[in-house]
């Protein structure tokens, strides 16, 4: 060692040792770095199970979550494929548990529904020994899986298939290929980035479900409307297929075995049906039908009752009709109504009695024969018609006894004495007519008859009305009776006073009723004057007149005749 080297050693020895130490540390660090991959799993395991495991989990949470988020964004397919076998069962389990109790409650309620169909199914279940739920299922299952294809996702080739019996043959490979192509086309056209796929299609009653898996898809051709259980069962089978086949190359024998087990249509249908929510034995259609039947029955009964009521009412009216003997009503051929009976020529016509039945839709037909009634009213009319008594003679029939009273010319009295006993129905005659040749006596008797008759004729009004145009017949009848009354009064040598008396019913204010009474009387007076009754002979009743203070409580008007001694 020369001087220079010795000097260098003296000056730099410390630095060299420090440099060597640093080099050794760097080499050791590099060595640790190189073996980090080997030591990391063991180190992670140790720290996880060691006293700092919880802290380690907290520290790692953020970077792991960040890494997972990045992976989801950049390699969504990888994440989906990795989670596929577990995510479906997990979701189904959570949803299934929540739904199970609800479905159980609903099923219990529905199964106990008391309907005819439910009872029939219960009888069938009891008879066959099959649980009631299965019987319900058998009757409510309204779908069928026609074809089920297991299709390799990448190539669209059919790995295996199952078809329902008795269906026409089809080229499954071509169909699977086109399905895959159309699925790719739809996904490429409208699917968002990330793999939205064609999942279902419907044509008429046929439904196609495409259930996607990472390596293979299931294409299910269904006829009808499947229940909710079928899709879940298909998904479950596809997951089972993936789990059995694993991630690597699959042995064809294994593929055949796995697919044969999972594509068994009979087992699939039974599985899906067992989870089918049982359809409620709907009671409302039956209730509606029963209600409709009850309604129709009630309508018929009411119609029959209404018809019978109308027939009975008609029967009563006809039975009470003087001069008519009802022999029968034939009401069987509704709405035709045949009325049979005997009718006296002097009786009132029957048509007005039939009007209510005609208004109710009946078509009455009268089959009547003539006869002579002995009813007092009809005998009186007959006597009136045959004897033609003058107005001064009063005529009445009671129990077949014809009473003639008043004043009449002697010739008429003689004739009546001879003819009256011959009138049909007259059992006896009481003739008290004064035979007189004096015109004044006859005139006076006629006036007295009018005094009795006029108040019997009443004109009727509607509530609050003081005019009755429909009462023209009443006014005409009054005018007819009053014809020549002035001459009669003159002949009799007496004065006459005609008073139109208006009346009102019990309702309304006094002032209103007083006005109504006056106007009704005025209406009658004016109507009679219009028909030729001298205005000087007629006046309207005054409320102050004690004679008319207690008038009938009805909406009417009548005529009162007073005979005074002095003309």
């Amino acid at each position, binding site marked *: 060692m020369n001087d220079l080297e010795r000097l260098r050693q003296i000056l730099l020895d410390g630095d060299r040792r420090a440099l060597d130490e640093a080099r050794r540390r760097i080499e050791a660090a590099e060595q640790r770095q190189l073996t980090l991959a080997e030591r990391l799993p063991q180190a992670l395991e140790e720290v996880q199970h060691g006293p700092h495991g919880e802290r380690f989990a907290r520290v790692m949470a953020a970077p792991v979550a960040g890494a997972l988020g990045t992976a989801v964004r950049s390699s969504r397919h990888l994440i989906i494929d990795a989670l596929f076998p577990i995510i479906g069962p997990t979701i189904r389990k959570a949803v299934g548990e929540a739904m199970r109790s609800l479905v159980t409650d609903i099923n219990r309620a529905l199964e106990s529904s008391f309907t005819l169909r439910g009872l029939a199914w219960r009888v069938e279940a009891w008879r066959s020994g099959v649980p009631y739920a299965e019987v319900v299922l058998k009757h409510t299952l309204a779908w069928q899986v026609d074809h089920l294809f297991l299709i*390799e996702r*990448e*190539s*669209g*080739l*059919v*790995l295996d298939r199952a078809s329902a019996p008795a269906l026409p043959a*089809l*080229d499954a*490979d*071509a*169909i699977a*290929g*086109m399905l895959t*192509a*159309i699925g*790719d*086309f739809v*996904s*490429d056209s409208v699917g968002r980035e990330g793999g939205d796929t064609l999942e279902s299609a419907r044509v008429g009653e046929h439904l196609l479900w495409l259930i996607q898996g990472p*390596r*293979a898809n299931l294409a299910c051709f269904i006829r009808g409307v499947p229940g909710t259980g079928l899709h879940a069962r298909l998904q479950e089978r596809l997951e089972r297929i993936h789990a059995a*086949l694993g991630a*690597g*190359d*699959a042995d*064809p024998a294994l*593929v055949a075995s796995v697919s044969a087990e999972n594509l068994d249509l009979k087992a699939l249908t039974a599985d899906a049906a067992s989870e089918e929510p049982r359809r409620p034995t709907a009671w409302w259609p039956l209730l509606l039908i029963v209600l409709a039947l009850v309604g129709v029955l009630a309508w018929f009964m009411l119609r029959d009752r209404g018809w019978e009521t109308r027939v009975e009412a008609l029967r009563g009216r006809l039975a009470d009709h003087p001069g008519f003997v009802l022999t029968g009503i034939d009401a069987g051929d509704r709405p035709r109504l045949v009325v049979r009976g005997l009718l006296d020529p002097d009786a009132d016509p029957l048509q007005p009695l039939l009007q209510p039945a005609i208004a109710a839709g009946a078509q009455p037909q009268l089959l009547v024969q003539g006869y002579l009634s002995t009813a007092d009213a009809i005998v009186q009319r007959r006597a009136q018609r045959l004897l033609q008594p003058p107005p001064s003679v009063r005529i009445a029939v009671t129990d077949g006894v014809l009473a003639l009273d008043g004043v009449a010319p002697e010739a008429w009295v003689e004739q009546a004495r001879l003819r009256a006993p011959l009138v049909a129905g007259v059992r006896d005659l009481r003739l008290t007519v004064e035979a007189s040749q004096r015109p004044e006596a006859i005139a006076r008797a006629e006036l007295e008859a009018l005094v009795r008759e006029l108040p019997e004729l009443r004109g009727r009004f509607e509530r609050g009305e003081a005019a009755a145009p429909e009462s023209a017949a009443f006014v005409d009848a009054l005018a007819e009776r009053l014809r020549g009354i002035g001459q009669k009064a003159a002949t009799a040598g007496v004065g006459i006073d005609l008073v139109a008396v208006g009346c009102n019913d019990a309702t309304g204010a006094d002032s209103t009723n007083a006005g109504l009474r006056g106007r009704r009387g005025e209406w009658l007076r004016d109507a009679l004057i219009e028909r030729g009754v001298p205005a000087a002979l007629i006046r309207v009743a005054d409320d102050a007149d004690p004679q008319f203070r207690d008038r009938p409580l009805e909406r009417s008007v009548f005529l009162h005749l007073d005979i005074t001694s002095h003309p």
Partner: protein
Amino acid sequence: MIRSSARKICMLGDFGVGKTSLVARFVHNTFSEKYLTTVGVKVDTCEVARTDGEPRKLVVWDMAGRNGIDTLGASYLRGASGLLLVVDGTRAATLRTALNLLMQARTVVPAAAAVLMVNKLDLIEHWEVEPLTVAELRNSLPVFETSALTGDGVVQAFATLAREIPE
């Protein structure tokens, strides 16, 4: 890889080279040709006898005429075991398109076997594709002169492709 016994092959070629007509008499036509203009592909099947005498089912994806492979075309190519490239012998440009399509398809299905069909043999007097070119192509892949009109060469091309397809 899960494998079916059938194999998927795709027909590629320029517009109007006669792909559909070439196989029309050879495949079971299940679907209408309208899918070519709508979905861009029509899938048919056929069976080809192998050397061992056993028939091999081929699922033929007849892809609409194109001069490049887009995303949808790539999805149609996925899983194909064989490629049938069709050229119109009377149009030399269709050969360049076919070779270009072959190169693009290789990026999607690198292991797929390929066969080239130079079509319209019945119009050979009007061919623009030189015989020398065809001879050179035979050094790279099987080449068949075919006629959709007479059916010449079609069966041989399919049989060769079926043989070339890896098991």
